[in-house]
């Protein structure tokens, strides 16, 4: 299984629908400071159910909604869709693809969908742990946080291994 695409719309510095398609192997995202690279990292975390605004550098979750810029109106809603390619059949689902979509508007109303069908956060969490992604505690390393494994407590590392197990 691999992440085959991510589509951002109204999310952080991506006001208009932007889709990135990934293949297996090593994909490298480059660009100048402030161009939007880590916003893509945040989008993956967010679509897969991140509950803490701080983990995506916000103070409240609505901070992820495109807030406008020079000559560009702000958006009222953020939406991110992550598609996992299951063609190797790793996850016990009939679908060859798992599309997870998350939305949030300025009023704070949000929803999750799996393959287009509305669902709850717990359904997303469950399908992710089936794929081995866990709470992506250990498979997404945000900027500035790689050395945390070394500076964290022994029991945090144990939890990391437990989640992978």
């Amino acid at each position, binding site marked *: *299984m*691999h*992440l085959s695409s991510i589509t951002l719309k109204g999310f*952080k*510095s*991506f*006001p*208009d629908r*932007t889709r*990135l398609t*990934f*293949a*297996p*192997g*090593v*994909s*490298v*995202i*480059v*660009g*100048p*400071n*402030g*161009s939007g*690279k*880590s916003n*893509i*990292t945040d989008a993956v975390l967010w679509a897969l159910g991140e509950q803490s605004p701080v983990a995506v550098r916000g103070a409240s979750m609505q901070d992820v909604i495109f807030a406008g*810029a*020079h000559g*560009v109106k702000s958006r009222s809603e953020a939406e991110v869709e992550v598609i*996992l390619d299951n063609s190797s059949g*790793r996850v016990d689902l009939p679908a060859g693809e798992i599309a997870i979509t998350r939305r949030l508007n300025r009023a704070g109303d949000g929803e999750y969908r799996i393959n287009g069908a509305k669902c709850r956060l717990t359904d997303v969490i469950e399908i992710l742990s089936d*794929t*081995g*992604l*866990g709470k992506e505690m*250990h*498979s*997404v*390393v*945000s*900027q*500035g946080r*790689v*050395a*945390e*494994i*070394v*500076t964290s*407590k*022994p*029991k945090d*590392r*144990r939890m*990391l*291994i*437990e989640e*992978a*197990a």
Partner: protein
Amino acid sequence: IKEAFEETFDAAAKNFEEVVGHLFPGGRGALRLVREDSGPRPVLGGGDDETPVPEPEEDEEESTPEDKLGVEIEITPAGKSTKRLTLLSGGEKTMTSLAFLFAVFLARPSPFYILDEVEAALDDLNIDRFLQVLRGFSDRAQFIVVTHQKRTMEAADALYGVSMAGNGVSKVISRKLPKPAEEVAA
């Protein structure tokens, strides 16, 4: 659940020693299970006369609830003596964390990993060691790496250029790359 953990831990510990061999040539490392109440062991001056989690014949371990267990990392870069992890340099801490991450990956791969600027503290030699290991594992999991380092770009199968015109809107252009010249056998 406890067995899944112990099995994963044992595999990760074995992998950690091997990955450390690649990331810290000439160095060695180990992962140890410790019980929460065993206070900080005096690490200066080394000494393996203290086994934090006793061998299975001591029935204490059987009764240690899992949430009292922790994982201690021991690392000895080539030529140095084992000290507190906190005393390691910025680059050494990053390499140790990456070794741990890869060790867990080998025990239980996730379908994909997203690594955002993990090589910021690494010198060129260490970036190359990291990239060699990364390419070696890229047949087993997908790695999406965010970077502003040229060296890391050279390890890519596909490149995604993110830019922002003076208007606060991000734009992405992508292109596949021919296989990197050096296909490294892990």
